[in-house]
């Protein structure tokens, strides 16, 4: 198969690539660009470790053709925050002990980011957070501290107090 030109915008930077049409976005990120913060496991959209943001929405990059990301904005874990400037979700995951082996964590954080952006101003309930994160498997934590971290980050990201958020 022959490679075709493809321009992608990843973490605000543009990349001019030559890719085969059947390559997944995950494959391009990890193998072509060496951006291994996005993880690889089941390759059938069951485990969620490959999650990235496409125009702000969480998607499984293992079943998305790279071509489908043309002209859209891709955010990976590398683009969310760096060690000196952690995103509140990244900070909360560390502070709440939500990280063990860590392999699912980039996908979990980006899924949570997409969800909290949708929440727009209200702090979600534990049940809502659990539902939002149900597409990402974690085998280490039992999810409890992950859920606590997401709620804590939501509180911090949210300028509205919790009660006002519920009322809306």
């Amino acid at each position, binding site marked *: 198969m022959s490679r075709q030109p493809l321009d992608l915008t990843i973490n605000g930077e543009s990349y001019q690539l030559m890719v085969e049409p059947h390559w997944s976005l995950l494959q391009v990120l990890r193998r072509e660009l060496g*951006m291994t*913060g996005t*993880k690889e496991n089941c390759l059938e959209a069951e485990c969620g470790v490959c999650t990235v943001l496409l125009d702000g929405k969480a998607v499984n990059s293992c079943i998305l053709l790279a071509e489908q990301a043309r002209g859209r904005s891709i955010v990976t874990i590398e683009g969310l925050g760096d060690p000196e400037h952690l995103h509140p979700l990244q900070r909360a995951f560390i502070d709440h002990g939500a990280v063990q082996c*860590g392999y699912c964590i980039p996908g979990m954080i980006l899924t949570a980011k997409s969800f909290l952006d949708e929440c727009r101003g209200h702090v979600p309930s534990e049940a809502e957070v659990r539902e939002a994160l149900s597409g990402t498997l974690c085998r280490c*934590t039992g999810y409890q501290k992950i859920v606590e971290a997401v709620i804590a980050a939501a509180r911090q990201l949210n300028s509205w107090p919790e009660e006002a958020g519920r009322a809306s």
Partner: protein
Amino acid sequence: MSGYQHRVAGKRLNRLDGIGKVTGKHVYAADFALPGMLFGKILRSSEPHARIRRLDVAKARALPGVRTVLTASDIPAIRFGTAIKDRSVFADGVVRFRGEAIAAVAATSLEIAEAAVRAIEIEYEPLPAVFDPEEALTSGAPLVHAGWSDYQALPVFDREGNVSGRAELGGGDVEAGFAQSYRIYEHRFTTQHVHPGYTEPRSAIASWDGNGDVIVWCNTQLPFDMKNMLAEVLDLPASKVRVIVPGIGGGFGGKLRVGVEHFAAWLARASKRPVKVMTTSEEELTDAYPRQPTIVTLRTGVSRDGLLLARQGRVLLDCGAYANSGPATAAIALQVLAGPYRTPHLAFESVAVYTNKGSTGSFRAPAGPMANFAVESQMDLIADNLGIDPLEFRLRNVYREGDKGPAGETLTSVSIEECLRKAADAIGWHDRRPAHGRGKGIACSWWLTTGGSSGVYVKINPDGSVTLVSGAVELGSGAITGAAQILAEELGVDLADVNVAEVDTHSSPYDYGAQGSRTAFSVGNACIAAAKDLRRQIGELMAAQWQVPIDSVRLEEKSVISGDKRMSLAEVASLSQRSGGGLISHGTAIQPMPVFDPSKVKNHPLPAWTSHSFHAHAVDLSVDQVTGEVSIHRYVVAQDVGYAINPTYIEGQIEGGVAQGIGQTLSEEIVYDQGRVMNANLTDYKMPTTMDMPRVECILVEKPGVNGPYGAKGVGEPPCIQPPAAIANAIAVASGVRVCSLPITAEKIALERLDRAAD
């Protein structure tokens, strides 16, 4: 440590590798790549038991981009294995399970490697196969290994035909015990194949250097064991094999043994290029190291007032086609079956058998959930029959301080009663049936802290930082952060001052590995020893420098002090480098083996447990009266951790272990039909998600042990032991249905109810 307040140990401090993990910068073995590397893929058997009549790789070799194709005929015929050397890199003319490796390809891309695997031509001559472990024991059963008697094996294992190992544990006179019994109960329990479920696939990259040494970057839990096993498989001296673990995305006992590393090493040698081999989900669910299925039969005699008098039992464990850790796992099940109860007369037997199914391994608390499901389900069945409350029945029989264990060892730091009472109080045991269709269950157990030695090198650097070099990998549990907390405590520095080096078998000191709930315990002890030696070095250096008595020199708040003299630890490290090579020490640790009575064990590789811990779980759940669906409302764990080195990560171990236990109890099973895995993907192999998990309430009991750092006991494995029994017991209360086979699916509960209604 009475009267001494810890500064670093015991605190809820953040793990050392957290920032790398949340920013995507932490490099796992699966992320690792080398310039010019090739990609390896494996041809696997489509038959459960067959002779390979023809194998032709010519078309595969001819494909553009294919650099090498290997089969058994291209490499030395070497057998390897943990207990028994029964396995080869590629099938040795006979395949023994569906999914067994037959050939391997290295190509310039994964796609080409996959195409090459498809281009290999193979013809089989089917052989009679055996899938059922009980059938495998019968005299006419097909032999999985016709040449079993020629295999090298550890002498402790008693083997014959399809039996890969038989062990015994017991004492007293069990028949006399039954003769004295008021009632005798007999039950049969079955458990299933369960995958460890680590999210990072097993992955290895091998590269051969100019000296003919092979370097393997992989995600093994046991770098030193891996090094030795690879040396054996590659027919090399161990000094020619170097194993480096960049990072590991979970293991849970599933990454102990050679999985893909040997393929990568052989392919790299043949192709003279680095080669990466990584598993797919299908390979994980067909050729990995899942928890073994078991059939446990248990016969128990009790007195009229509810005291255990005699127990006889057998654990039949299905190893699959290769023994691996199966014989030892089956033997360890016997201790789980015995404890934590006083029983005057015991006669337990384990039998590990071969079948034509995938190999199995040492998933977290190997044997724990299987044996505990049997013994703790039966405790409830007996209590119900005797009309005694199940908690009360347990409390009448549990071990007390100073009791003898099943092998005659003396039990110390016994906390089972405290764990049971705390778990029961927390769940509200006084109200076991709070509503129709709702019920509470309890189960308890004990477990060991695995032995084996640990070494650490510790350096104090001229900037005041401390480098910890350990041969133990950080699996994710936080154990290395825990060990670093102990080191920081002992050296009077902060946790943030400690950096941890990557594990590299060329430069790291030996460690028995991240397994068996031992890492924080054993590496922590080695850190205490290393710190002691560093304090000695500092004392000698500064006593000479200041002309003061050695015992006047002390370490405090990152300074070295004697009388009114004071120098920062950083300056002392710098002084040591200028005058004598720097502050560096080698600390080691190993647990003493308990004294036991050899007459109580036979062919048992682990006769008595080191640094045992006790724990109790209690659960409150509802069962849908129509569908049989189980909803867990509350889950409580009271676990004796001896000393909580970092409560946050101990809770993490408990919460995660319970999740795995709930998965084994309610939904997970690698389903086999005639040797074929019917659900080799993560859609149909159902691990718990956020929606399936209740909150887990952790009660950390701290009854100090004798051998652990500050009294700590092993933590990691126990939390997955009791969920099957605790949940089964609660389901019985809530629904009236007793299910004795795992997993307890809604379907099983509903069908059982229908059967009962029909009777």
